[in-house]
């Protein structure tokens, strides 16, 4: 309900913006309902914080929910591209949704800033994917950081438990690719339903395989149940989580039982503990402040991906607007070229350096390893 005010503000601002100024139209798709709403709702909330004016250009955001459904995402994208003739699209939240809309984006030659973890939307780079730019840490960056921590702590065998939805499937794929490379053995791989009320069977199976460590691949409050069940059943090894667990609920619901969990996530999560040498610190704080001001709660990291998309637009729209008029194919092409040349743009979670071959831009600086200590996030040095 708190977001009413903000949204009203957006509505008023967009209404006040006269037709005299050049106007850029951005379509935003997030999954604010359905299975990945824990990711999408924060992204939706962040839309209200995006820049309304970039240079001389006013920016009009059109928001649509895709109910976490790829088919709905393609319908929304078609509406944006054909009806609204948007200049760029931010979204959608889920990797399958982003993959599903790729052909439409490529056909319409319109930029899509995808806040998804899967690298499948930008790799291998081809004519279709050259219109897509990723604003979230690659899933494998997270896995690299986690596996590096495992290696240094002598982990030889590991088990994975993830949700039986696109998020969990992505985590599993990325994780297996990295441990294969690093020579860690996967001794058990289990899945569970997002709204399952028990994972005792899966936990027992993991327990009987006695791995050195377990990684939970899920998001939001769902991350808690497998970990708590494992702890209750007496598992003594290390438990790892992805950035999917980087939410306040994880600490609240997990309580004492998630003490010592290791996760890899954006530095934003431990904003106060990171040194000023971390480049994204200031930008991350700006996002946290803006979000907290409107919604009275601190944001998780999912919405920051949409915030970063706003920063990318802030940098590139003026460049494109100097070359062509918004609403034209020339403007969209110029915007794409500008995005491909973004260098050293500091976002809320890391630093972007785009190249024609690499449209994800983030480097290792966008990921830190964090543990839970005394019921709070603690940066691991």
């Amino acid at each position, binding site marked *: 309900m708190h977001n009413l005010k903000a949204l009203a503000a957006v509505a008023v601002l967009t209404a006040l913006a006269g037709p005299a100024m050049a106007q850029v139209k951005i379509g935003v798709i997030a999954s*604010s309902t359905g299975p990945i709403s824990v990711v999408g709702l924060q992204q939706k909330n962040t839309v209200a914080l995006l820049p309304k004016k970039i240079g001389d250009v006013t920016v009009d955001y059109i*928001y649509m929910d895709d109910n976490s459904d790829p088919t709905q995402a393609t319908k929304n994208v078609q509406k944006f591209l*054909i009806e609204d003739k948007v200049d760029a699209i931010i979204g959608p939240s889920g990797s399958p949704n982003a993959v599903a809309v790729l052909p439409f984006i490529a056909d319409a030659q319109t930029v899509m800033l995808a806040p998804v973890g899967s690298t499948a939307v930008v790799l291998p780079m081809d004519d279709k994917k050259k219109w897509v730019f990723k604003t979230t840490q690659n899933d494998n960056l997270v896995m690299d950081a986690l596996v590096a921590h495992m290696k240094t702590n002598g982990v030889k065998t590991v088990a994975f438990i993830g949700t039986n939805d696109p998020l969990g499937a992505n985590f599993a794929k990325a994780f297996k690719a990295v441990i294969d490379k690093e020579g860690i053995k996967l001794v058990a791989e289990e899945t569970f339903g997002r709204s399952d009320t028990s994972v005792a*069977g899966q936990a027992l199976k993991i327990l009987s395989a006695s791995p050195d460590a377990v990684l939970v691949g899920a998001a939001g409050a769902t991350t808690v149940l497998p970990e708590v069940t494992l702890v209750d059943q007496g598992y003594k090894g290390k438990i790892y989580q992805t950035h999917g667990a980087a939410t306040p609920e994880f600490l609240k619901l997990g309580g004492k039982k998630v003490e010592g969990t290791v996760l890899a996530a954006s530095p934003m999560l431990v904003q106060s503990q990171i040194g000023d040498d971390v480049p994204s610190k200031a930008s991350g704080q700006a996002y946290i402040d803006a979000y907290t001001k409107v919604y009275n709660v601190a944001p998780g990291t999912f919405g920051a991906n949409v915030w970063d998309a706003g920063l990318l637009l802030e940098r590139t729209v003026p460049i494109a607007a100097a070359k062509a008029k918004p609403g034209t194919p020339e403007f969209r092409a110029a915007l794409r070229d500008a995005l491909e040349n973004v260098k050293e743009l500091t976002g809320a979670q890391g630093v972007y350096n785009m190249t024609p071959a690499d449209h994800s831009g983030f480097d290792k600086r966008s990921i830190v390893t964090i543990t839970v200590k005394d019921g709070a996030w603690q940066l691991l040095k």
Partner: protein
Amino acid sequence: MNLVVALFLAQDGIANGVVYALLAVAIVVLFSVTRITFVPQGEFVSYGALTFVTMQDGQRPGTIPLLGLLIALHVVLDLVGGWRKQRPAALLMSSLRSVAAALIVLALAYAGTSFDLPLLLKAVVAIAVVTAAGPLLYRIVYQPLADASVLVLLIVSVALHFVMTGLALYIFGPSGQRSAPLLDITFPVMGVPIAGQTLLILGVTLVVIAALYFASQHTLYGKAMQAVALNRTGARLMGISTSLAGRASFLVAAFIGALAGVLISPTTTILYDTGFLLGLKGFVGAILGGLASYPISALGALLIGLLESYSSFFASTYKEVIVFSLIIPILLVQTLRQHRIKEDDDHGAEALPAQPNWSPQALQLRRRIKTGLGIAFVLAVAAAPVLISDYEIALLNYVGLAAIVVLGLVLLTGVAGLTSFAQAAYVGIGAYITGYVSSTYGLSPWFTLPMALAVAFVLALFGSLITARLSGHYLPLATLSLAVVAYYLFAALPQTGGQAGMTNIPPLTIAGWAVHSPKAWYIGIWGALLLLQLAMTNLLDSRPGRAIRALKSGTIMAESLGVDTWKAKIAAFVIACLLAALAGWIYAHYQRFLNPSPFSFNQGIEYLFMAVIGGAGSIGGALVGSGIVVLANQWLQTNLPLLLGMQGDFQVIIFGVVAMAMLQLLPRGIWPALLDLTGMRLPKAWSMSTDTAPLPARGKPQPGETVLAVRGVSKNFGAIAANRDISLDAKAGEILALIGPNGAGKSTLFDLISGVQRPSSGTVHFLGHESSYFPRTLSRGGMGRTFQHVRIIPEMTVLENTALGAHARVDTSFASAALRLDRPTEARLIGEALRQLGRVGLEGSATQTAGSLSLGQQRVLEIARALASDPCLLLLDEPAAGLRHLEKQALARLLKQLKAEGIAVIVVEHDMDFVMNLADRIVVMQFGQKLAEGTPCEIQRNPAVIEAYLGGAE
């Protein structure tokens, strides 16, 4: 797996199973009293749990204002509903009285959340708030639908589920919650730690089930609710209000749900949509208990919990696949234990509005207008690509794809009365087969189309072999299980790309040109849709179509007319699944990306939703329903932010509310209502020619030849002997009357002769061979019958009902019917039906719907229908009941004429004048035995008969 692990899993299974058991019991209460399949039962769990946890966070949960809203809505609806009947002040008072309890709960909860109550009191408040909402929901959502069919009630429940999930997301947010523990102790049993919480849930469940069982058997209130469950009209006559019983059952169900929610909230993470799957599993348990028995339902639910627990250990990826695959054999066993022909009790209670009586000229004009509108519609469809944008065309493509699937559902669910949740799964089968084969082996989609259809055909045949045997509530559950299994296979199999999805599906190419643009697809999709609609219209207006239309009115009637109902059910299922697979094939090459969600069971429910909204029994309804649902969803998606200034979440809520309101107003769906409103529901223009080639006739026995020989048959129902050692003969060219007081066993004997029942001992010989005791083969062998309680298809015309009688005399395939190649045969069938109607004097009513006839005329219609089968033995069960004097005389003349034609006639009749003047021989029955046999004169003088009639019950 060692013993400790096994025990651990057993404990986990029981802990989950008892929660399912609680919900199963609540679902049984609701269904048995109100016939509502209450899909959102699980929502009570998440509302209860999240209300409880929100209060622990020191906040006032959104459920409290929601309760206030429901109370207000209740009062407003009462006032609006009774506006003209009563004085407003009195009305307001009575309305307030019925919400008094809820108001008190609201006030207490509001006050209570201002303090920091102890944990236990918070639990009480949370349960009370949700419980108070239960009866309000019944009043607002279901009470106006008290007479609707089970299918409509189910769909309304689905809509309510949408609304409640949407509201839960709004009220509680997307992240999960977990409660502080209520009972934080564990103690080991045989090395397995048992949580006190688990024992608490177990104990509470046992208490609830015991209490319900006791209440239903031993308290006046419980008995009254049972009475409503058994016989609504009867209960009403006895002064038991169905709405009171409905409210009471919702109170119980909401209480049980909220209680379960509070109990499990410390053991797991509760999300806003956790309830749905819990409720689904409770539903499965309830059905395993036949939706009637509390203890068996609870055991069924417990079994689900255990299955789940063990399969999550052995193969967590395939957990749901294992659990739901195992349900199907259980269902099969349950069904096979039943009697082989089971009648479904639900015939869809909504009566058709009477057909207006147009003059021939007016009818002619309206037919022209309707044809004109049809042509205009086709032209509009053809012109659309020029007139509207690519985006709108793309939307229409999704409408068209859905309409192809829903067209199949219209046949399957609307016409044949078989509820299927599995259609989305068959869409998925079509899509994934073509997607996998064309992307992996590089085959052209034109090659994979027959492949996809063939696989869907085989799987549909497999599915229907299971489902066609199932009856009642088992069928929807079986299709739901198929849908769940298919979805989780799509998500887990390596070939489908799983949740990440399948890409690189090649586009469809025609002569080297790739079909790419929405407009190109539009031509294909809508062209196919229009052709399929035409084919479906043809099919329904044909011999095999009538067989499918007969399914809904009960198996016994159709089988007694020689219709192979099993084949008809399989055909309906297979056709529906082929349409779904075709839509899937198009979808795969149109979208060129596949992932499991468009083929989930939720989507299966949504297709059903479209069918019912549009009008489940009508072909036009398929398009209207798909159009409204797809376009309204997209419209809300786009415009809601503008209207409300808020975004997203409200779409599903508004959609659900509108759907519920619409079904309350138009329970038959939009399209039929629209036709009636505009006076466009027109009777078909039949060619009324009797000048057609006759149908093949069977060789008749010689007059005097024994057609039927009953030898020493007995029939026992448990300890009751309905028939004892009865023997009789019926001869060609003879009228045999069967008389006796009520309860003498005449109808049972009829059932034994016609094969509806099999005798416990003794034999029945028909035309020299021992009876097969199957109505269909007997009917095909020349045994025609009518029913004591008229069994006709009320919405079909008199003519079509009669033509159904001649069903077995010719053979036409589904394909020839759909392609209109069956017209010569069809003309002969209709000609024969008209001739038989002429014989019984009903030719003037031939084009009326059979339901519009008087009861007496309906009996005569049954005779015409039996005659159309060219019988050599005619069984008439009380044919003269409800006839006027002149009609009786006409009937007597007809029967004498049949006798002269060499037909053997057996009549059960109470009208003694009628019998004595007509029959050649009479058999008198009493207490299940043959009392006497002889000519009318002999019987009238028989002392035993006189004793039975004068000294007996009558």
